[in-house]
């Protein structure tokens, strides 16, 4: 995982926006092979959208052949309600750029069959050839999309109940009225995000600092679902200084140094072209099969960790040749020290210990004497 630390939110947002633009340009998308972009809502990505719009208006980027998939949407809120994510996306992004409405995908929180809507959404992503780049934000509790703490890291698009903290945080979009905030949402799963060929997270402000710390410095943990990114071969968190407040100075310095060195060397992470360009999209008609009897999250509990650790680096980095690790041969530490005094086994022989345990139950004092003797033996 890369961690890009910028001086402030504006610089961080500009970095993220430019990164996305560069990715789109590099692919030079066509109608047949569009760039598939995953998109978030919330306050952190606002700056990114603003700059993307500016760059579009300046003629630096076109979204004509960009297909978008949004992460989530509330359940049971009128689609054009100002708090809906449809409205958010329209207001901050879609209304300003040349994206075609047919290329825009957002979960329908008013679908009669929410489960089927989720299954169809996964199928649509697949039909579009998978997501090239998923832009994401991060919740204060480390959630990615609406994958609240405790969400399965192997989860896929599904209906979720919102955590209390999230409802409170989002009430600012509903006139600070707690009761008006929808309590359920449809969201892509952690695994849906991890399936993207690239994940870029934008985290701004001191309130995100703890989440960044948990996801960068601590282990993979379902209580901080964004930490699953550690298993992604090509992920990046872009943050401002404030969002690093909880990190160890050493960690922040380390990541800054890496970027500095990389920049001075003109080094950009090089990925095999297959990862960047993905696979041709399948025909949409053929692939949307809504199987209502099978919930995707239940039917595909394939282990995330094993899939990622095995598949990604080992097979996809074929251009980088590494010698395979030698087979494991157990040996004794003592044997590595030249001194002959250590060549004999210092720990009790197993068979003796067994004997010892048996005698311990009979006579503890004797057992103690035996053990002392055995050391001397």
């Amino acid at each position: 995982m890369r961690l890009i630390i910028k001086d402030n939110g504006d610089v961080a947002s500009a970095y993220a926006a430019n990164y996305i633009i560069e990715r789109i340009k590099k692919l030079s998308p066509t109608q047949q092979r569009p760039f598939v972009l995953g998109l978030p809502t919330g306050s952190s990505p606002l700056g990114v959208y603003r700059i993307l719009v500016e760059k579009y208006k300046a003629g630096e980027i076109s979204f004509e052949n960009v297909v978008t998939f949004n992460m989530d949407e509330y359940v049971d809120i009128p689609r054009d309600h100002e708090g809906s994510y449809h409205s958010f996306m329209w207001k901050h992004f879609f209304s300003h750029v040349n994206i075609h409405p047919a290329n825009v995908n957002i979960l329908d929180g008013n679908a009669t069959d929410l489960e089927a809507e989720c299954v169809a959404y996964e199928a649509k992503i697949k039909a579009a050839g998978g997501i090239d780049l998923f832009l994401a934000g991060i919740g204060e509790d480390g959630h990615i999309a609406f994958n609240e703490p405790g969400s399965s890291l192997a989860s896929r698009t599904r209906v979720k109940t919102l955590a209390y903290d999230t409802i409170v945080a989002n009430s600012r979009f509903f006139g600070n009225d707690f009761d008006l905030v929808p309590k359920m949402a449809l969201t892509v799963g952690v695994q849906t995000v991890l399936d993207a060929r690239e994940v870029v997270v934008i985290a701004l402000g001191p309130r995100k600092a703890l989440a960044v710390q948990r996801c960068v410095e601590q282990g993979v943990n379902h209580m901080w679902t964004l930490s699953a990114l550690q298993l992604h071969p090509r992920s990046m968190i872009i943050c401002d200084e404030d969002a690093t407040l909880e990190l160890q100075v050493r960690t922040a310095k380390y990541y800054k140094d890496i970027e500095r060195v990389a920049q001075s060397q003109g080094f950009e992470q090089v990925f095999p072209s297959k990862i960047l360009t993905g696979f041709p999209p399948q025909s949409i008609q053929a692939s949307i099969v809504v199987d209502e009897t099978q919930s995707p999250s239940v039917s595909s509990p394939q282990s995330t960790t094993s899939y990622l650790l095995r598949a990604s680096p080992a097979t996809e980095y074929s251009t980088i040749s590494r010698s395979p690790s030698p087979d494991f041969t157990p040996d004794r530490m003592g044997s590595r020290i030249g001194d002959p005094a250590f060549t004999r086994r210092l720990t009790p022989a197993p068979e003796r210990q067994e004997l010892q345990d048996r005698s311990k139950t009979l006579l503890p004092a004797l057992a103690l004497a035996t053990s002392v003797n055995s050391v001397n033996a």
Partner: protein
Amino acid sequence: MPSVITSPTSKTGISKLTNCRIAGGDALIWKDIWVSSITGKILQSQTAFYDELITPDEVIDLGGRIVSPGFIDCQLNGAFGFNFSTLLDDMPQYGKQLQDVNKKLVETGVTSYLPTVTSQTGQLYQAVLPYLGPSGASRLASAGSESLGAHVEGPFISPTKHGIHDVSVLHNPSTYSDLEHVYGKSNINPGSPGSGPIPVKMITLAPELSQAVPSVIIPQLRSSGIVVSIGHSEATYEQASSAVSAGASMITHLFNAMRPLHHRNPGIFGVLGSAGRAERPYFGVIADGIHLHPTTVKIAWNAHPGGFILVTDAMHTMGLEDGRYEWRNGGGKDWIIKTGGEVVLEATGGIAGSAVSLIECVNNFLEWSGASVPEALKAVTGTPAAMLGLKGVKGCLDAGADADLVVLRDEVVDGGVVRLGVDEVWKFGKKVYEKGV
């Protein structure tokens, strides 16, 4: 600079105006507007995008200019040489001349208006009113400015506050049928369902003329959907108040042709402070710099900003060269002299309407009052629309409203005063005028 980016998709008839500040509410806000030339309305763009999957045919960058709803003039006696109070031997010719006026008028930013007929004989009213009724049903952008119905200013007005109206044609109404007799029944009474709107939209009368006015006539007109405006009147505060309580909702050119404010009887002006239990009425103000002192305009606005409507009261000399022009007035003919924005009756030297355009009134008002641009624009858009019962249809930029727009350039002149200029005019979702093109 403004540019047009044309999208290659099939024709949807939709134009997106972008990079503009819109003046629909209390502040200028940066917002795009989508208009459809097919429905002639402002689109709910988000719904169009998500539901109908449509994108605009053209995106028009307005370079930061202001978009206002089209202007509404509630008192216009004629323009570009054509006087609405005119009897022609060949009346169909009247309709043609009216169409010419509409096409020219729209270029001043006035996208809809009330053609106003002064105190005249019944014969003239009955001949011209059928031409002056609401003309928007065809929704033809090329027809230019749209009549929202006629404004008949008289002849039921006070003989002592007649202004330049011909006293010999004035009447005292004792019953409602007196009005029917003068205007013609079909011009003020709703017809059978489906027969179309009635030609008259507003009547200026003096409420003190008879007891029947507040008790019978005003309620009867209200029930037909006609706006009753107090004007050319000697009404006291009490008489004006009871007229408002009876349903009068407008005052015609406040301060002109009425008693001035007296501290012990504030007269008609007094209802701007309070009209008893009734809501305070709307009022028209002529901000041409001649009819009223600038401070008087400011006082009126401060008294009741929500009712403040700018009107031109322009004569047919509006848009013509300075000079001496014939004017049909009631029973006979008079001559009026136009000098710049000033129009006087040759015989008496009395003020005879104005020759200003509505945008000039807006600019004067901006200069005199210190009002903000959206507040000033409201006086020629949202407020008159509300007065005419057309809220949400005219005078606003909400989705579903008619796509009548004015694109304004603004420049700050001496003293930090903002001056507006009409750059483009859109009618029913189509651009009908562009400055210099």
